């Protein structure tokens, strides 16, 4: 098992999490950054790397991807370490006030303070409202994503959804599974015309079945899924024997496991004290889009400010007896760790 020791464990490698490394570095605090995504930059890298941002002080415009590269250069002197592609699951507070943060893959990060900079949270599959659907989760026939297509070899599948992933997986799994039925509530695929054409031709060739104007409304089985009911918009129903049902209704950002950490939550965000952006649990701080307080603005520049104040709070938490004097980079330049 991978084990890491650091001063501050920063959860989230978006712009605010990265800048927190710099502010911590000025106070000689080392940081380890964890992110569920495989690369740094958060939304900026994942969603809009080529989009210009106009409200970063000192930059009339800067591409999101360039801002991330600049931040990485800016924090380089402080030698941050990273665990990427692993979602943080839980934490344990130790008797000495330090923490052990654990990721989904079992990596343990022993740290003296935690800074949650998780942005929108983690992207989780949107689940359709079907009674008892959750009883077939966890390998019993209902899957919200396709991790390994081979797991569906020679199975009878029903996929539901009308977006890119529903179409793309229907095309891919048509060659792998025994039968694939795609159920879509509408008649059009407005987001992905090319893939829709491919699915239609698979349907005409008899290699996949496309059921339009319909929804999967019931799931059946005894311990393991064995059938679904498809209800058409005109009210007619059809029961279909299946091995797996794959609802693909996109991903939606959720607070994720952090929501279960016992922190005070409001409006799906971590409530903080704006003195130092501390949460309701001493030693755990929250900065950027994931926190909330009166007057909160979800702006990168506000997150940078929050990062600076958070580091002061973290420093005091880690060194309760030291009297801290703010260092200005204009006087000493950037120190190194």
């Amino acid at each position, binding site marked *: 098992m991978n084990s890491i020791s650091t001063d501050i464990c920063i959860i989230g490698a978006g712009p605010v999490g990265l800048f927190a490394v710099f502010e911590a570095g000025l106070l000689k605090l080392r940081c380890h950054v964890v992110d569920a995504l495989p690369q740094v930059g958060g939304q900026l890298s994942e969603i809009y790397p080529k989009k210009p941002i106009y409200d970063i002080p000192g930059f009339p415009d800067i591409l999101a991807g360039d801002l991330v590269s600049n931040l990485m250069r800016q924090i380089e002197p402080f030698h941050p370490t990273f665990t990427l592609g692993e979602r943080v699951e839980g934490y344990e507070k130790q008797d000495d006030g330090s923490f052990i943060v654990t990721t989904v893959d079992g990596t343990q990060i022993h740290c003296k303070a935690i800074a949650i900079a998780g942005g929108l949270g983690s992207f989780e599959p949107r689940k359709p409202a079907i009674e008892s659907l959750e009883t077939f989760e966890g390998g019993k026939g209902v899957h919200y994503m396709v991790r390994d297509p081979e797991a569906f070899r020679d199975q009878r599948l029903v996929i539901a959804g009308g977006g890119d992933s529903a179409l793309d997986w229907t095309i891919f799994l048509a060659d792998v599974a025994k039968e694939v039925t795609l159920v879509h509530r509408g008649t059009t695929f407005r987001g992905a015309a090319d893939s829709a054409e491919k699915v239609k031709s698979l349907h005409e060739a008899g290699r996949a079945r496309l059921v339009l104007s319909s929804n999967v409304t019931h799931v059946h089985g005894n311990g393991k899924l064995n059938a679904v009911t498809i209800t058409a918009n005109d009210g007619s129903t059809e029961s279909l024997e299946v091995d797996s049902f794959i*609802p693909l209704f996109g991903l939606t*950002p959720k607070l994720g496991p952090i929501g279960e950490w016992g922190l005070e939550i409001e409006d799906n965000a971590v409530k903080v004290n704006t003195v130092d952006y501390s949460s309701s649990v001493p030693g755990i701080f929250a900065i950027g889009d994931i926190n909330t307080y009166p007057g909160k603005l979800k702006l990168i520049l506000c997150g940078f400010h929050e990062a600076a104040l958070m580091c002061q709070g973290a420093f005091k938490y880690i060194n309760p007896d030291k009297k801290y004097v703010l260092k200005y980079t204009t006087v000493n330049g950037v120190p190194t760790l």
Partner: protein
Amino acid sequence: MTDEVRVYVEEADGQRTEVVGPTDMGLNLMELLKASGYDIQATCGGMALCGTCHIEVLGGPTLDEPGDDEMAMLESLPVLREGSRLSCQIRIADAIDGLILRLMPQDS
């Protein structure tokens, strides 16, 4: 020409509530509805990424067609109506004056 528009939100009981929005603030409809006390998560902050500001347009002026990002998000949602839109992608401007809408349940 005033610098305000009126939109009408159909509540669960069928009553319509007038919501007045300024056109000179660069707001979108999601922000106006949220500021008016409606329970909208808008997790992504207006980037057509989360689908939690889903509304159904019931009547009023014809709006501009949704953009590609909005189309893709709408199509991926479990429930779609004829008038489905993401309110974060609709600008508060003269063109929407008189719009009648209702909020779709979160996550649909």
